[in-house]
C-alpha cells in the first residue's frame, strides 16, 4: 500500500494520471495508469467484467485477478516504469498484490498509409509508420517465416526507447550480426532518439560521405533486404526501417524493379547508372572543357560554346558554382515550404531566374542545360540518402576539373572510386552487389 501511495505522489502533478477504486463483491481494487496512454473506460470495463463473472461463478477472486496480467512486486520504481510504459497497474487492496495488465491502448499513431518519400510503381503501397508494433506486423506479413528473428533492445538510461533488430537466421553474415549485436549491447545505456545517435552507437564515422544504411518506408524493400542477408532495424517513433549495411547496388536497385519484366528492370537500372555518372561528371566536364581542355571538343561545338559565353565576365568555375548553389537553395527551400507555395518557388527558380540569368549574361545558356541535367539526373538515383552524397561529390569533381581539366575530372572519379572501395560497414565492404559478405 505504501508503494502505491508513493506512486501516487510521484504522479500527483500529472494531469493524465488516473487512480480509481473498483469494488467487486467485498474486495476493493485500486487501478492506476496514464489516461494519455490507456483507453480507460474500455480497459476498466474489461477488468471489471472478468472479475464480475468470476464473482458470480463463485471463483476465488484474487486468483482470477492475478491471472489478468503479470504480477509485479509492489515496489515504487518498478511500478512507475510500468505505468510510463503504458501498462495498467491494478492492486488488490487487501493482499497488496500488484498486477500489470496490458490495457486497451490509446491510439498514438496514424493508421498505415501511403509512403511519403518513396514512390513505387508496381508494388504494394502501405508504408511503415511511427508505431513499432505496426511496423513489425507489416514486415511479418511480407515475410511469413520462422527464419525471421527479432531481438528487442531497450536503449538509454534517461529516456528509454526500443530498437528492434530483425534478420534472417540462415542468411545473415554471422560476423556482421555479431558486430551489430555487440555494439548495441555494449552501449545500451546510450540514449537513442535520432539516427545520428544510432549511428554513433554503431560507430559509423561522422565524416562518412556515403551512407552506411538505407532507410525504407516500404515493407517489401525491407523484406527484400532481409532476404539478401541484411539486418533491418526499427527504432521507435521513426517511420521507416533502417537497413544495414548499405551496398553500392542500393544506388540502382529497388524491389519495385522486380515487378516489371526483366528487360525493363535492367534498362531502368542502367538508366540510374547513367544518371549517377551524369550528375557527377557533367558540371565538372563543362568547366574542364570550357576552361582547360577546349581541344577535346569538336570545333563547331567549341565555337558555339565560346559564343554563348561571350559576355560572361568570370571564369567558368565561378559561373557553374553560382548556378549550382542557386539550384541547391531551390531544392532546400522546397522542403521547407508548404506544399501550396512550393510550385511557385519552383517556377520562379526554374523559369524566371534561369531565363533572366541568361539574358543578363551572367551565365551561358549551355550551363543552364548542364545544371538542369545534373539536377534531374541526381533524382534518378534510388534513395534520397544516396543523392546527398552525389550532390556533394559533384563539387569535388567541379573543383578538380577547374584545376586540372579533364585530368582533374578523372582524378576525382578515381578518388571517389577508391573512397567507395575502401568503405566498410560493420566489417562488410560497401562495394558489393547483392549479398553483404565480410572480407
Amino acid at each position, binding site marked *: 500500500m505504501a508503494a502505491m501511495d508513493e506512486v501516487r505522489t510521484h504522479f500527483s502533478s500529472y494531469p493524465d494520471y488516473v487512480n480509481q477504486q473498483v469494488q467487486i463483491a467485498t474486495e476493493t481494487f485500486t487501478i492506476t495508469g496514464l489516461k494519455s496512454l490507456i483507453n480507460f473506460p474500455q480497459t476498466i470495463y474489461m477488468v471489471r467484467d472478468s472479475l464480475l463473472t468470476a464473482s458470480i461463478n463463485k471463483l476465488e477472486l484474487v486468483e482470477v485477478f492475478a491471472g489478468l496480467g503479470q504480477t509485479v512486486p509492489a515496489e515504487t520504481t518498478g511500478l512507475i516504469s510500468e505505468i510510463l510504459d503504458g501498462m495498467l497497474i491494478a492492486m488488490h487492496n487487501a493482499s497488496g498484490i500488484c498486477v500489470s495488465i496490458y490495457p486497451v491502448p490509446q491510439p498514438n499513431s496514424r493508421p498505415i498509409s501511403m509512403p511519403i518519400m518513396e514512390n513505387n510503381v508496381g508494388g504494394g503501397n502501405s508504408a511503415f509508420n511511427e508505431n513499432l508494433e505496426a511496423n513489425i506486423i507489416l514486415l511479418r506479413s511480407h515475410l511469413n517465416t520462422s527464419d525471421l528473428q527479432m531481438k528487442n533492445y531497450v536503449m538509454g538510461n534517461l529516456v528509454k526507447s526500443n530498437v528492434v533488430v530483425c534478420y534472417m537466421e540462415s542468411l545473415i553474415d554471422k560476423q556482421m550480426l555479431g558486430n551489430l549485436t555487440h555494439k548495441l549491447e555494449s552501449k545500451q545505456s546510450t540514449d537513442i532518439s535520432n539516427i545520428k545517435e544510432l549511428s554513433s552507437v554503431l560507430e559509423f564515422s561522422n565524416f562518412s560521405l556515403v551512407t552506411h544504411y538505407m532507410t525504407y518506408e516500404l515493407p517489401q524493400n525491407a523484406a527484400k533486404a532481409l532476404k539478401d542477408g541484411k539486418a533491418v532495424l526499427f527504432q521507435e517513433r521513426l517511420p521507416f526501417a533502417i537497413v544495414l549495411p548499405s551496398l553500392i547496388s542500393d544506388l540502382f536497385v529497388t524491389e519495385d524493379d522486380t515487378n516489371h519484366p526483366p528487360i525493363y528492370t535492367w534498362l531502368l537500372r542502367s538508366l540510374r547508372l547513367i544518371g549517377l555518372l551524369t550528375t557527377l561528371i557533367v558540371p565538372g566536364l563543362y568547366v574542364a572543357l570550357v576552361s*582547360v*581542355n577546349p*581541344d*577535346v*571538343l*569538336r*570545333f563547331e*561545338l567549341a565555337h558555339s560554346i565560346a559564343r554563348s559565353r561571350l559576355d560572361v565576365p568570370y571564369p567558368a568555375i565561378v559561373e557553374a558554382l553560382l548556378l549550382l548553389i542557386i539550384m541547391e537553395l531551390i531544392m532546400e527551400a522546397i522542403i521547407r515550404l508548404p506544399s501550396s507555395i512550393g510550385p511557385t518557388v519552383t517556377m520562379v527558380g526554374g523559369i524566371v531566374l534561369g531565363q533572366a540569368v541568361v539574358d543578363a549574361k551572367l551565365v551561358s545558356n549551355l550551363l543552364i542545360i548542364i545544371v538542369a541535367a545534373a539536377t534531374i539526373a541526381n533524382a534518378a538515383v534510388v534513395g534520397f540518402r544516396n543523392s546527398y552524397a552525389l550532390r556533394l561529390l559533384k563539387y569535388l569533381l567541379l573543383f578538380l576539373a577547374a584545376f*586540372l*581539366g*579533364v*585530368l582533374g*575530372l*578523372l*582524378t576525382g*572519379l*578515381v*578518388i571517389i*572510386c*577508391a*573512397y*567507395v*572501395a*575502401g568503405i566498410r560497414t560493420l566489417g562488410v*565492404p560497401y*562495394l558489393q552487389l547483392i549479398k553483404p*559478405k565480410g*572480407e
Partner: protein
Amino acid sequence: MSKNLEVSATYVMTHLGLIFFLYPLDIIESTNESHWIPVIAGFLFHLLIISMYLKGLSYFKGQNIVDILLKKNKVLAWVVLFPALLYLAWIIVLAVRAFAEVLSIVFLSNTPLWVLMLLLLIVPGFMTFHGKIGGLLRLSVLLSFLFIIPVVFVMVTSFQNIDWHYLFPLWPGHGAFTFLTLPPFYKSLFAYTGGFLLLGFLPSYANFKPKAIFLGCLVLLPTYLISVYIPVLTLGEETARRLQFPYLLVVDTIEINWLMFDRINIFLLLSLVAFTMFFIAVTLWQILIIIRLGVIDISPNFLIPIILLCTFIACLFIPDWKTADLLFQWNIPLRMYVSIVTPIFVLTMGWLHARKTKLGLNNS
C-alpha cells in the same frame, strides 16, 4: 571466399597501365620487322615467371611471400627481398616521373611538373591508405567496369587507318633473334614484370585460382600486340620509330564524325592514368608490406606519407626525360634479377617445404 575476379582484374589493370606508353617504342626499336617475335618472346617469359611464382606460392596456402621467406633463413630471405624492395621503389619513382612527363606533354603543358607528380602520388596514397588491400582489390573491379569500355573502344577504332601491307614480312630474312642482344628488348620487359610480384603479397582471405591469372594473361596478349602493331600498321616501321609515344599519336589520327569529341586519345589516356594510379597504389602496398613485416612495424598512418615523401623527393631529382630513360635502362639488371630469382627461389622453397611435410607425414 574466392576472389578470382578481383585478383585477375587487379592483375590486368596493373599491366594495362604500363603497356601503351613506352612498350611500343621499345619493341619497335628492338627489331626492324616481324615485331610479333619479341612480343611473343616477352610474353612467354612472362608466362614462365608467373607460372613458377604461382606454383611456388601454391605450396604455402594463404601466406604472403614475406612471411614465407623470413620464416626460413633471414639472410637468404633478404637476398630476395632487398632487391625486390629496391626494385619496387625504383619503379614507383620512375612511373610517377615518367607519367607526370607524359601528362605534361599531352594535357597540361603549363601546369608545373611537381603538381602532376604530387597528384600521381597522393591519389594512389589515398587508395592504399583508405582501402588497404581489400579496398584495392575491390577498386580494381570498379575501375575496370568504368574504364575498360573506353579503352576497348579506342583499341577497336584505332584500326581505322591501318594498312595491312606493313604486316609483311612475317618472318625476317635474317637475324630473327637479334633483338635478344639489344637493350630495348630488355627495357620492354618492364611491361611484363611490373606487376607480377603482387601475387605474392595478397592476404590469406584472397584466394584465387591460378587459372584466373592465366585468363588475365590471355586478355593482355592482344593488348600487347595491338599496342605495337597499330603504330606499325598505320605509320610503317620507319616512321613509327621516330615517335616518342607511337600508339598515342596513332590514336590521335582517328576521326569519328559522330562523336562530339575531337580527340579520341583523351579517353584512352584518362583510362590509362586511372590504371597507372592503381598500379602505383598496388606497388605502394607491396613496399608497405615488406617494410612492415620485414623491417619494422610502423603504422601505415606514418609509413605511407613517409614513402610518398621519399618518392616525391626522388622524383624531383630527375631533371629530364633523358635521365628517366637512362634510369629505365639501368633498372634492367635489377629487374631481370628480381623477375628471375624471386620466382625460382619461391618455387625451390615451396618444393622443399612440400617434400619436408610429405616426409613428416610418412614418418608419423
